[in-house]
């Protein structure tokens, strides 16, 4: 029953270890399209903002290597120990239960690793939270189950619109299922856009993977975040807090264009959305 334990374990460990590179290869072969999830992707999306790029750098160059090494190290130790000290190979167990040097080492080394991670990590955090001088401010409100946008009047706006997902049945060729919307939110490239965020009813969350942006939309609270898009294009996001039956069906689409194109769009939007400009709404009250 216990014959061939060492061979058995070794084969199993190798098979297991082979699993991960195969997966990784499959994923790395996936095509990366800007602003939308890559089919079969295994990594972070290409980032279109400086904060997003810093996040990507922290994860890919610091966090992922560190955690992979630790996991492989532990796996290696386990395989080695199983190999070297199974009862057939080592019938008499040692009595070693202490080793001060080892215990100090495995306390200090993790601390050093954490310090190594913390330095870039704290820097990224400050960049995310501290909002630079902005030229555009948009107020985004979460609703069940769509996002609405208001553009500030003193920045060429003075209108608002709702952004509804296009249902499967109405999709045109080229439109992404569950991500395409009727009214895209347009912003200028290379400018700091401040997003003020709240909710009309329950908690939602505004998240755009390619920007490194995620912030909760909470009724009765005005949250703020920001992004500076470095490349023109269309960028998709979704709702990241469970908000009811259509939580998966309230996508976000941001289109980044040049400043002149943005100003042109502002004029068109003002006319298009003038009729539907809704008054400021109070946060959700108790509904009986």
């Amino acid at each position, binding site marked *: 029953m216990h014959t061939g334990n060492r061979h058995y374990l070794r084969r199993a460990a190798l098979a297991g270890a082979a699993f991960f590179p195969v997966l990784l290869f499959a994923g790395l072969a996936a095509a990366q399209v800007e602003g939308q999830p890559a089919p079969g992707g295994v990594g972070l999306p290409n980032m279109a903002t400086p904060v997003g790029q810093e996040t990507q750098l922290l994860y890919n160059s610091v966090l992922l290597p560190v955690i992979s090494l630790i996991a492989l190290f532990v796996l290696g130790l386990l395989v080695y120990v199983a190999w070297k000290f199974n009862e057939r190979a080592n019938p008499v*167990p040692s*009595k070693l239960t202490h080793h001060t040097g080892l215990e100090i080492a495995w306390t200090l080394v993790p601390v050093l690793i954490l310090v190594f991670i913390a330095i870039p990590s704290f820097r990224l955090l400050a960049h995310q*939270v501290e909002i630079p001088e902005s030229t555009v401010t948009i107020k985004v409100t979460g609703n069940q189950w769509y996002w609405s946008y208001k553009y500030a009047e003193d920045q060429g706006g003075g209108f608002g619109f709702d952004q509804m997902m296009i249902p499967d049945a109405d999709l045109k060729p080229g439109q992404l299922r569950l991500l395409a919307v009727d009214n895209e939110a347009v912003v200028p490239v290379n400018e700091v856009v401040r997003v003020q965020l709240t909710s009309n009813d329950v908690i939602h969350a505004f998240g755009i993977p390619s920007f490194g942006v995620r912030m909760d939309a909470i009724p009765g609270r005005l949250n703020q975040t920001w992004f500076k898009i470095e490349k023109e294009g269309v960028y998709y996001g979704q709702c990241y807090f469970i908000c009811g039956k259509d939580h998966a069906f309230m996508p976000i689409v941001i289109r980044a264009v040049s400043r002149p194109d943005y100003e042109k769009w502002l004029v068109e939007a003002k006319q298009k959305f003038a009729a539907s400009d809704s008054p400021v709404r109070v946060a959700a009250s108790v509904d009986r």
Partner: protein
Amino acid sequence: MASSTTAGDGAHDHPRGLSRFLFSTNHKDIGTLYIIVGAIGGIIAFLLSVAIRAELAEPGIQVFPVLARLLHGADPEMALDAGKNLYNVFITVHGVLMIFFMAMPILIGGFGNWFVPLMIGAPDMAFPRLNNISLWLLVASLVLAVISIFVEGAPGMKGFGGGWTFYPPLSSNTGNPGPAMDFVILAIHLAGASSILGAINFITTIFNMRAPGMTLHRMPLFVWALLVTAFLLIMVLPVLAGCVTMLLTDRNFGTAFYDPAGGGDPLLFQHLLWFFGHPEVYIIILPAFGLISQIVSTFSKKPVFGYLGMVYAMVSIGVLGSIVWAHHMYTVGMSLNAQRYFMFATMVIAVPTGIKIFSWIATMWGGSISFRAPMLWAIGFIFVFTMGGVTGVVLANAGADRQFHEGYYVVAHFHYTLSLGAVFALFAGFYYWFPKMTGYMYSETLAKLNFWLLFVGVNVVFFPQHFLGLAGMPRRYIDYPDAYALWNRVSSAGMIFVSLAMLVWIYAIIEAFLRKRVAGDNPWGAGATTLEWTLSSPPPFHQFSTLPRISGSDHM
């Protein structure tokens, strides 16, 4: 509880039949009942997860509208909406059942009740009747939780579908005016009371009823784990009770604790919930840690390496784990300094946890390892929990969490620590102590098959979810953009292995009871040094009426 002879030898001393279990004051019987409750909760929660992964296997919505019609008789036109709601209810109930009605009952109520008295040389728990009420409160709680599925939640929908963390306003009248959420709140009240009473029982027992010679520093690590866990329970469950009671009054008595229109704040709920919620995950994993220490030591035929370090590691995990709760709230709009503090404190927990992982490996080092099924599960635990732990270190970084919050990277993280970590420890403990509890030996072949099927299965289910999280897939989603299809398909395919593993497990139990191979007092040999192995299998109805005396300076 002194010595032998006539005390309690009357007919009432060893009850039979239904009253033996209904009115039990015996820690072993109550432990068995807890394990049965946990198995039932776990099997239901597992079936829910089968439905969830079936739905997520392909883009689009295929399964839940049908389920909604079957379960609630939903109208064909309403079926899609009812299906979407039912999916949210399923993920909510899955979480609630797994945490409160599977992991905690089996680890704490089941193995804790069975083996803490045995391991410290006590005849029973300090408060045997309190033990009984803890059990039946939990059963009543489960009944209420199941009822909630069948009554109205969101308008026109059945059940509460706001996630096991049930934040208002979705869980208040704004999102869920129907009574389903009230049933959930009352279920939480009962389960909380059950655990608070149980914790009181464990603390009193461990402090007062250790056999002569068993100092605190000679206690088995499993007992230490239960001690720390019990203190955490006492500290945080009252906070949860307050939190849900305020939600109950908001919903039914016109208060506005969490309603901004009345001067309240939804974030108050989140702070209170996570003040409970984060220690809760340590409440689940600490008993598992204790179990792994016992099993690794037994099958390496060596005492645990660095006993005192292990004790202090568990205590510091408990203490630190109580002051990091807002790392679940990095995206609510918290100040920079608050995020910095919680990030720092959370990262520190990696140190004592790492100490434990290395100590287990050091225990095996130089040992004479026997790869029986419990040891396979324990070694598996060390690896998969490390994987879950390192993704936890990633998420501790608030800057990185911004990218992963409420996405599948988080789902992968907690399933690695729970579905792989805690569940592996559960199976390890199950096979380790099954011979002691029943007197029968399980089939080693079936047990090993159980392990390999589950090991492959849960890794295939959950490893690809890291990819989904990195690519941006949000959690608690019934449907997803087509780009996420590949890894969802792979993840769902893993459920085949997991389901087979569960069937093998059930068959292994049946087979052991049918074959009746006698296990003997100690099937594990010289490595099993704790007191339960000195008793018969199963132990007598009352044990240690003469207290054992612990000599020698070593811990167990």
